[in-house]
């Protein structure tokens, strides 16, 4: 277990305080993504046809593949956090797998971005309006697409860095159980990043042609 800081009477309280801290941080993250998704909803309601048209230009199957990768990563993280704590080596292996799957997600996303760029789907001077019946609204949709997926990818990258750092510390630590709270907190963050993607998938890639 994590060494007891002086302000805590017992390890259980220390752990509960740590987890509450992570959850409060996650609540602020919900507000960050919630505000962006509210704006997205308002503009999509104003122009559903144009949003559906622009969404159909995205690579939905790559996003589905990426969802599968991120879910697998979450499963590996859950196994690392909830598995037998005594076996530190198993935990190191599972955390390495979690980070590797997270990195795979970023790699696949980078390929998707490259394909998007090749088709001039990035809003701005290089944007190709020709394939769209409603180019202005399409550009607005694509702005949301790049911003939301980009912000999410930043969260994934931060998570991969966090988990990699933790794994290295676990490997070299003489008392790996002293990092229990850190591993559990990182797990909460990682699952949250997964949940954000679970909502981005239908909202950005699966817009029905109303």
């Amino acid at each position, binding site marked *: 277990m994590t060494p007891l800081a002086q302000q805590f009477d017992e390890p259980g309280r220390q752990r509960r305080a740590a987890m509450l801290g992570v959850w409060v941080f996650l609540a602020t993250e919900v507000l960050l993504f919630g505000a962006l998704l509210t704006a997205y909803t308002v503009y999509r309601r104003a122009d559903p046809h144009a949003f559906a048209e622009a969404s159909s230009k995205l690579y939905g199957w790559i996003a589905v593949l990426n969802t599968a990768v991120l879910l697998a990563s979450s499963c590996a993280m859950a196994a690392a956090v909830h598995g037998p704590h005594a076996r530190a080596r198993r935990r190191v292996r599972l955390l390495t797998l979690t980070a590797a799957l997270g990195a795979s997600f970023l790699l696949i996303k980078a390929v998707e971005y490259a394909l998007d760029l090749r088709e001039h789907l990035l809003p701005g001077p290089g944007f190709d309006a020709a394939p769209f019946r409603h180019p202005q609204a399409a550009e607005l949709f694509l702005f949301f697409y790049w911003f939301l997926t980009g912000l999410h990818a930043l969260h994934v990258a931060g998570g991969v860095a966090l988990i990699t750092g933790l794994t290295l510390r676990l490997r070299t630590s003489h008392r790996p159980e002293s990092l229990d709270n850190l591993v559990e907190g990182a797990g909460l963050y990682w699952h949250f990043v997964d*949940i954000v993607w*679970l909502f981005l998938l239908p909202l950005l890639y699966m817009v029905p042609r109303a």
Partner: protein
Amino acid sequence: MNDVSAGETSRTPRLFATALSLYALLGLSVVAWRLDLGLISTALSLLIAAAKALIVALFFMDLRRSAVSVRLAAAAGLLWVAIMLMLTAADYETRPPGTRLGSPTPSEGESSQPPWLYLPPADRPAISSGSTRTN
């Protein structure tokens, strides 16, 4: 020590069951997407996403066994987003047709605002199909 390891071994099958249900729901999302059910497909796909999120929160994030303070923190974020969504919808969904998104009243005739800034008038599709990127 014994009861701890017993609890941990019983967790592995549950982890697999959780993973399996998540992938089954992902499959369902893809089916709903490819079938293109029209208007209800947005509601359906969001409902499936919410189900996935609930499974992740309850079983992976262990919310079902968390302290009350943790559950309150988790609910607080969602509550405030729900309030924001409801107040926003109460505004935009109750404006008269033909209103610009930036103004609370209907605009007179054709405006110089870009067409996507309008809520569509009741008798007209969202955008006239001839709209271009000029201006």
